[in-house]
Every structure is written in C-alpha cells, then in structure tokens.
C-alpha cells in the first residue's frame, strides 16, 4: 500500500530550510546503500528521503572483516566507510536515485577539511533534481583518520561547517556524534556556522570480545553501536540539543516504529531517519510512514509540526529545577 502523502486529514509534509519533504521518515546513511539493492524489497519512492552511504573523494574498500556483531537489542558495526568514491557516486548513484520520487541527501565523510569541500563541490556540480542537500559525517567511529577526531572537537566542527556553508544553497546538515560529554556546544556551533540542521545521533562507541579466542569480535577492536538499545540515548541527546539551540534536528537512533519516531518529534526533531531496522526489514520505512499517519489520525494531529517540540514537563518537576 502506498501511503497518502499530504492528502486527507493528516499532512505528513515537513519543510526544512527551502526543501519540502513529503514525509518526515528518511533512511539513514550506511543502512540503505545507494538505494538500488533496497529497491528490490521496498518501494523507495514512499520515503521522505534517502541519505546515501557516506562518500569520500576516493573509493574506500572498508575495514577487514569481521564487521558486524549482534549485541542485546543492537549491533556493532565497523564497516569503515566502504564506498564507491565521489566519481562513481555522481556518475552512477545520483542518476539512478533521480528516478525516484523522494529527496536525496548525500552524506559526505572525509579526512580533511579540504576533502570535505572537494567532495561537496564535485557533487554540487553534478547535482540531480531531487538532490536536497548534504549531510556531513563528522562522527564515524570506525576510521583511523577523520571521523571522530572532527566530531569531538567543537572548534573543528564550527570551522568545517563555516567552510562548507558558502559552497551550496542546498541543505547543509551536520551529523553529530553522541560520544561527547554534551552535544549542546556542538549544536550551537552548527547553528552559528549556518547549518540548516543537525542529525543526531551517529553510533555509540562499543566493543565486544570473543571470550574463547580473547580477540575483539570486530577486527577494528571497537565499533559503532546502533539499534533499539541506543534509542534512549538518542532521545536524550536530541532533547539536550533542542534545549540548548534552535537549529532543526533530524532524530536518529534505534527507531523501529511510528511510536519510536514520535518520541523524537516530541523532544524536538523535525524529521527522523531509520537505520538498523532497515537490515531487519528493508520495507520498514513504508510501514513506519503508514503507521505514523494512523497514529496522528488517532491523536487528532494534522501535521508533524504539531508534534515537534511538544514535550510536557510536570509543573512540580519544573519547580524543582528539572
């Protein structure tokens, strides 16, 4: 069944910057490939948007196996930003995705400010009509260079965002890491540097050990934890970012259902991304969109805006300073 987008009583449309998304359900970078594989298992035109796998200037082979470990209600990954490189990306992947009625956000990972700029400019000069913008990954825990070293340094995030901002009129979204003491200064830095939104959260640093061999289960020792296990962490971080900045938030982390998505809207997210759940069910996005519409009908809510940032805190707790 195709979800009705914006017709009837419930309007799922959401605006971010100058872009209109037909619904607030996106799929997260690295959890949907470049669309073509998933297209065999779901109608990707149903989605509000697709954030593509992080792309760097040159292709990256990714890390040695083992790359995947299941954990309680979650998984660790250490893919290592395996990707086709920006040239194949603009030559093959963007044109393929241009055929679908959904917005594309190109996620960029790099190991220097220069590389970030080059990749963005190259994509910008090959932009397709449904390319809505860029998500800047400064938060990958699974590469030796770049990644977390950017994302945990508030000055570098500010500088990088400022450098990228003039290069595009499309959406500039910075994807932040949860692996910091507080996400608040990072949200503020992105806001100050002119980003259109932040996405929260990337994976949480985690590790698992094979107790028979005494080896780390992932070849890279540590990896990134994702899935339902981290949802409470993600909700708390979105809440913290909302309290401390005004920049729009794209909520990510352990979302499996419309109810889960709703938690993120309520604490302040304008849109959300589904990650790990796509591995369990590549058709999850469509189901969440349909269920969200139902849930909103039941609640008598007509648009996602009416959900975003509607957290209610008890008076007696407010009085106590919470």
């Amino acid at each position, binding site marked *: 069944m195709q979800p009705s987008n914006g017709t009837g009583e419930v309007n799922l449309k959401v605006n971010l910057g100058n872009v209109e998304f037909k619904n607030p359900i996106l799929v997260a970078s690295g959890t949907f*490939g470049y669309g073509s594989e998933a297209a065999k298992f779901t109608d990707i035109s149903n989605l509000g948007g697709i954030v593509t796998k992080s792309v760097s200037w040159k292709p990256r*082979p990714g890390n*040695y*196996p083992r790359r995947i470990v299941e954990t309680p209600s979650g998984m660790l990954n250490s893919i290592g930003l395996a990707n*086709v490189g920006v040239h*194949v990306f603009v030559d093959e992947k963007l044109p393929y995705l241009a055929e679908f009625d959904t917005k594309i956000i190109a996620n960029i990972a790099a190991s220097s400010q220069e590389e970030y700029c080059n990749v963005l400019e190259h994509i910008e000069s090959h932009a397709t009509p449904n390319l809505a913008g860029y998500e800047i990954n400064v938060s990958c825990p699974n590469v030796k260079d770049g990644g977390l070293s950017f994302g945990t340094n508030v000055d570098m995030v500010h500088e990088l965002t400022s450098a990228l901002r003039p290069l595009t009129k499309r959406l500039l979204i910075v994807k932040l890491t949860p692996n910091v003491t507080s996400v608040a200064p990072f949200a503020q830095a992105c806001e100050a540097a002119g980003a259109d939104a932040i996405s929260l959260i990337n994976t949480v640093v985690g590790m698992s050990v094979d107790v028979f061999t005494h080896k780390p289960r992932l070849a890279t020792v540590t990896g990134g934890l994702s*899935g339902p296990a981290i949802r409470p962490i993600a909700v708390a971080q979105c809440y913290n970012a909302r309290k401390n900045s005004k920049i729009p938030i794209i909520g990510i982390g352990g979302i499996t259902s419309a109810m889960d998505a709703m938690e993120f809207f309520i604490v302040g997210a304008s849109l959300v991304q589904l990650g790990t759940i796509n591995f*369990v069910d590549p*058709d999850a996005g469509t189901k969440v969109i349909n269920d969200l519409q139902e849930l909103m009908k039941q609640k008598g809510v007509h648009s996602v805006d009416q959900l975003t940032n509607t957290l209610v805190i008890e008076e007696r707790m407010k009085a106590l300073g919470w």
Partner: protein
Amino acid sequence: MTTHRLASRSTLAPVTERRQIAPGLVVLRFLHPHIASTVEPGQFVNVLPKVGFTAPLLRRPFSVYWIEGEECEIIIQDHGLGTSILANTQVGEHLDVLGPLGSPWRYKSDDFDTAVLVVGGVGVAAMPLLTKHFLKNEVPFSTYYGARNDTLFADEYLAKVRYATDDGSKGYHGTNISLLRDELEKGSHPRIKLFACGPTKMMQAAIALADEFNVPCEVSLETEMACGVGICQGCPVETSVTENVTSGKKFYLVCTQGPSFLKEQIVI
C-alpha cells in the same frame, strides 16, 4: 497476519512440519509459494529468530534446503541463541522469512562435464537443490560427504554419496578430501568441477586440491550478515581481483555477490 504479500517483501510463513534429522539438526518446512517457485540452487533465506522481539535483533541466514510444491525447507543447526529459538519453532507458528537471496551456484556454466559435490557439516543444506538439478538434467556427478562420525549425516535429499568419517564409523576412514584425492589420483577425470560447502578448513582443502589438479572449484561461504540484501556492507570476503567496485577494491559482499565464489575470486 498476512501469510503472503509482495513477492520480494518479508513474509510470515506458517510452519507445516518440523523434524529432527540428526543430533542438533532440525528441519523446518514452511509454506512460501514465492520462494518455492523462484529459488535456485545455492540461494538462501534470511529468517527472524522471533517476531516482535528486539533481542535477538537481526535475521539469520539459511540455505534453502528443499522445495516441494509451495513449501520450502531449511535445516537449522543449533549454534547459538538465534538458531536455538528457531529450531524450537513448532508447527502452526510463523516464520518471518525474506528471500530468496544471494546468487545461485554457477551450476549451468560450461566449465565442467562432471560435478563433484564436496559436503561437510551443515553445508549439506546447499546441496539438495543442486543434486536435484543434476539428476533432472542428467549431469554426471558424485558427492563426497565428510563428517566426524556416522550419526551426523543428513543425506535424505542427496544422491551418489561417498561417505567419509573421521572415526571410520561409516565409509572412508578420513576426510572426504582425502577420499576425493584418492579418486582423482586413480586416473582420468573428465572435466570435473568441485562445488564445496562446509567448514572453512574443508573449503581451504578443497581449493588446494582443485589447484593441484587444476580443476575449477566453487565454494559457498558463511559470514556474519546484518541485512543479507547488500545494504549494510557487513559481509565482506577478501578478494584477489580488483574489478569489484561496489564494495571498494578489496572485498566482495557474500550476501549478494555470493554466497558462492570461484576459488580464483577470493582469499579465505
């Protein structure tokens, strides 16, 4: 509960039979017209351990062991939490199944006249549909099946089997690879190709043997998988060739480009 929706979406398939065929080996049969009518030898399905639970979270991959009418079978070896839950599924309960997935054996290629199936452990699951094809199309073949002892064979759908056991309790006393080597050493072997599925050590030995006798060899691999459909990049196998752009330069994805590979393609 929809028992069947769109061809390529995950499906709740009712279990119609459950039987234990060897210690720790359970066969589940379930109704799944789409898989039953489209699967090719060597493909697999990805099955959720328990519908509605977040732990275990991910699907588990299983070769399609057999098809009959609109029904499919998988064989489950008790290995960890996911497989032990699945092995306990009862008739009437539903499995959440995604498939068929992966690429088939290169069983129609013309690089062989006679097929040699090299089988070990639960790798047997990849062989019945291949056997059926060869029987039906009168392709000459033989099967070299190795196990620790004679209680561990699951040969209900195999044919032309030569057994080998580590303890000599059935057939040849030794590995199926030594048995096969003995045969190959005996003399002329008309354009054979090995199709191997079993423990890594057996695969490595099969490759070494094929190298030695200079015959083609295709092996079916197992890796951990998060998605099984090519979107997570979690299932790489190192490759010696460099034409594989999708996953960068150095790896194939076992779930889509495999699970079986020609020996020249990979490093294991």
